[in-house]
């Protein structure tokens, strides 16, 4: 792997890979994660090299546990890191905040997703947590910074005994740029836990809070002097303050517009470098603040300007998007407006005008050919119809909310499908049917199921047991060692069944039975992720069966509602594309007379 090659002075790395490199150059010894795009490649990269470098790595069952483990290893003096997507921080927050009080030194990487490229829940900004939790926070703009800031994060964590947050965004995670390599510091196998008298009394907590506030004042001095907070002065009364990838758009726009402006690059946004910003804005007439997603830096600048330079004209979210990803043209537009560069504005608007009224049709994602989820959704719709309340959750199966299935009336957050369905079952006479993936079930579905049993909710839970965390790229989960059916027994679920989702008859019968019973019922819908399976087969050089349509018939039109991408209709004829068929055989059960295995 390029990332750990000794003979390379530099390489093109993804932001996520650069984080890993930075951790290796800091002596990383302990790393945990729960997968979540755009952060997934951090854990996936470490998993590939951990053994070789003697680093302890695990995919944990959820982010809270992952963070707790990193905190525990931090107590023992190991260089430890935990990575997750932004929602993971919501899950882990309860443990994170006290770990700040308890002075565990470790590094947290949380990846925000402005534009929600791979997120459906909210478009949140993790930097609010910096303030809630007193977390020193770094915001890289590109891969080189991602590496350097990771090293700085480990330095701060150790020096001040505090968890440090690296706030990534999709664009930084998923961009490649040059990273220069320094030496990898060998990992340590074992640390040592020094007993410390942390009694959990209320006065102790208040004292620790007091101590923390003092510590933050000290770290603030680091923020004032770090090379990651710097400015490029120019003879101009216009200034631009930016953080993250937006900084690059600012440089690009200034170059294109050929304007003079001073630039302040914020790399460490908490504690805020108040003095340096004061110096920067003192003599300016106008300033533009460019950041994704929320106006966090902007609010700080406004506050400081009231004292230092009340007549300063401040632009920010009034000229730039308040939601979605910020694009280079947004920054160009804002700076063109401020600098009254009419021609650029006209050009940009002209370009936009060209596209107005044109409906750009974009290809949408679908289940893979042979996906077990498709078979499950199809069978359940066939048996229960469309009127039932269908709860959704997070995973590949959220595609079940799209046509032709449209079988998720709500998707909230990981594990929430069960809890929300339970509330609906109590508030109505409905028996909601909720789809939850296996990884999601282990992550946060289990406590909700226990509540369901305890209070006798009337819900049919479908656990989509595809043996993997598919949506985020195929990571393992606790199902490797824990059987879901054993959990059913242990949790007191009386009515549950296991089915092979590729068996239409078996699954139909079990659904009928489970749905007709009042109370908690569970279907463990087994079917291995087809992508995973096909990859395995391909690696082993095994050829899987293909299916073909041997007899045309108008009734094959029903396959439209099944929507396997391999089954197509061309010039009025139905056919199966052999390059696409992944041989699950489900379509053949639907039309045994028309579809046959290809010999």
């Amino acid at each position: 792997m390029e990332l750990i090659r000794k003979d390379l002075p530099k390489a093109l790395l993804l932001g996520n890979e650069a984080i890993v490199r930075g951790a290796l150059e800091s002596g990383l010894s302990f790393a945990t994660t729960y997968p979540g795009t755009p952060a997934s490649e951090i854990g996936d990269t470490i998993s590939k090299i951990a053994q070789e470098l003697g680093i302890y790595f695990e995919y944990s069952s959820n982010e809270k546990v992952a963070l707790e483990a990193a905190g525990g290893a931090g107590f023992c003096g190991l260089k430890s890191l935990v990575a997750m997507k932004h929602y993971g921080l919501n899950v882990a927050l309860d443990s994170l905040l006290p770990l700040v009080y308890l002075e565990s030194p470790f590094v947290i990487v949380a990846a925000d997703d402005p534009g929600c490229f791979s997120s459906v829940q909210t478009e949140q900004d993790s930097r609010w947590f910096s303030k809630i939790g007193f977390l020193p926070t770094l915001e890289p703009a590109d891969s080189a910074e991602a590496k350097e800031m990771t090293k700085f994060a480990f330095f701060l964590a150790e020096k001040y005994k505090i968890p440090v947050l690296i706030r990534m965004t999709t664009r930084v995670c998923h961009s490649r740029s040059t990273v220069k390599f320094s030496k990898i510091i060998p990992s340590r196998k074992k640390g040592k836990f020094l007993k410390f008298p942390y009694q959990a009394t209320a006065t102790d907590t208040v004292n620790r809070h007091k101590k923390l506030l003092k510590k933050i004042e000290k770290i603030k001095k680091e923020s004032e002097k770090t090379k990651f907070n710097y400015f490029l002065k120019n003879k101009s009364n216009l200034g631009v303050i930016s953080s993250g990838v937006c900084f690059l758009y600012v440089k690009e726009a200034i170059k294109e517009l050929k304007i003079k402006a001073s630039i302040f690059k914020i790399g460490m946004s908490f504690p805020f470098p108040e003095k340096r910003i004061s110096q920067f804005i003192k003599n300016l007439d106008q300033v533009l603040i460019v950041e994704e997603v929320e106006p966090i830096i902007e609010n700080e600048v406004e506050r400081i300007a009231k004292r230092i330079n009340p007549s300063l004209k401040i632009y920010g979210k009034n000229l730039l998007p308040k939601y979605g990803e910020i694009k280079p043209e947004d920054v160009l537009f804002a700076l063109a407006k401020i600098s009254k560069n009419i021609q650029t504005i006209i050009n940009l608007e002209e370009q936009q005008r060209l596209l107005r009224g044109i409906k750009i049709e974009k290809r949408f994602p679908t289940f893979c050919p042979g996906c077990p989820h498709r078979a499950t959704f199809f069978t359940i719709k066939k048996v229960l119809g469309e009127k039932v309340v269908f709860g959704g959750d997070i995973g590949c199966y959220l595609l079940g909310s799209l046509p032709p299935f449209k079988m998720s009336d709500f998707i909230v957050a990981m594990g929430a499908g069960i809890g929300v369905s339970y509330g609906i079952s109590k508030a109505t006479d409905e028996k909601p049917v909720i789809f939850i993936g296996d990884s999601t079930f282990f992550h946060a579905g289990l406590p909700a199921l226990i509540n369901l049993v305890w209070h006798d909710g009337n819900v049919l839970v479908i656990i989509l047991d595809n043996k993997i965390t598919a949506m985020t790229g195929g990571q393992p989960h606790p199902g490797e060692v824990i059987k879901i059916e054993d959990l059913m027994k242990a949790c007191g679920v009386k009515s549950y069944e296991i089915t092979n989702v590729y068996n239409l008859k078996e699954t139909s019968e079990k659904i009928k039975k489970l749905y007709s019973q009042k109370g908690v019922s569970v279907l463990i819908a087994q079917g291995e992720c087809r992508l995973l399976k096909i990859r395995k087969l391909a690696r082993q050089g095994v050829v899987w069966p293909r299916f073909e349509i041997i007899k045309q018939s108008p009734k094959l039109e029903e396959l439209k509602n099944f929507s396997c991408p391999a089954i197509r209709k061309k010039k009025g004829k139905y056919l199966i594309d052999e390059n696409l068929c992944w041989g699950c055989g489900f379509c053949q059960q639907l039309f045994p007379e028309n579809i046959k295995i290809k010999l």
Partner: protein
Amino acid sequence: MKKNKTFNLVIVGYGGQGVITLAEIIANAAFAQGYEVKQTENHGLSQRGGLLECHLRFGQEVFSPLVKRGGADLIISLDLFDAFSSLNYVNKKKTIILTNSEIFSPYPFKEISPKKIIPFLKKISKKLILVPTLKLIGNISKETSMINTLILGYALGKKLLPIKKKFILKAMTEKIRPQFLEKNKKIFDLGIQVAKKH
């Protein structure tokens, strides 16, 4: 390429076509040739079948990884249907669209006619180049999995990419699994040859 110029490339296609591999090959080749390189990709929500969009910018000094609206010098589209979703980056004055002439319809039961798309792409771009991939690859192999390297060869043959062949070959050797390398190189060469003749 002129000294101060940054080359702006957008690559589109759908999951499973090797869009990201193609972007990585070009990025690594540009890097090996000594350019500063920024590359970025948008994944959709799913593993397969969704739209993929990669941006690649290289030159002496490059900041943003994203190509700006109307900023593409070249758009490579691995499916004609997806060329349509790169419109945001097209500029009548400079953008060349190099695209697969085939359409894999996102609607399995509905065919989409190229006639709806081609005239429009012609109108808004400086130049539209269609690569008849099916016909070309069909002579060598039944698989459609090497459209990415075929079009890459074509782009090189037509001198649309300011990158030397030797760097591309080196990057291909690094990125493509050994058992597929020879076939890919053959298809790549075919792309170059055809482009020179067309």
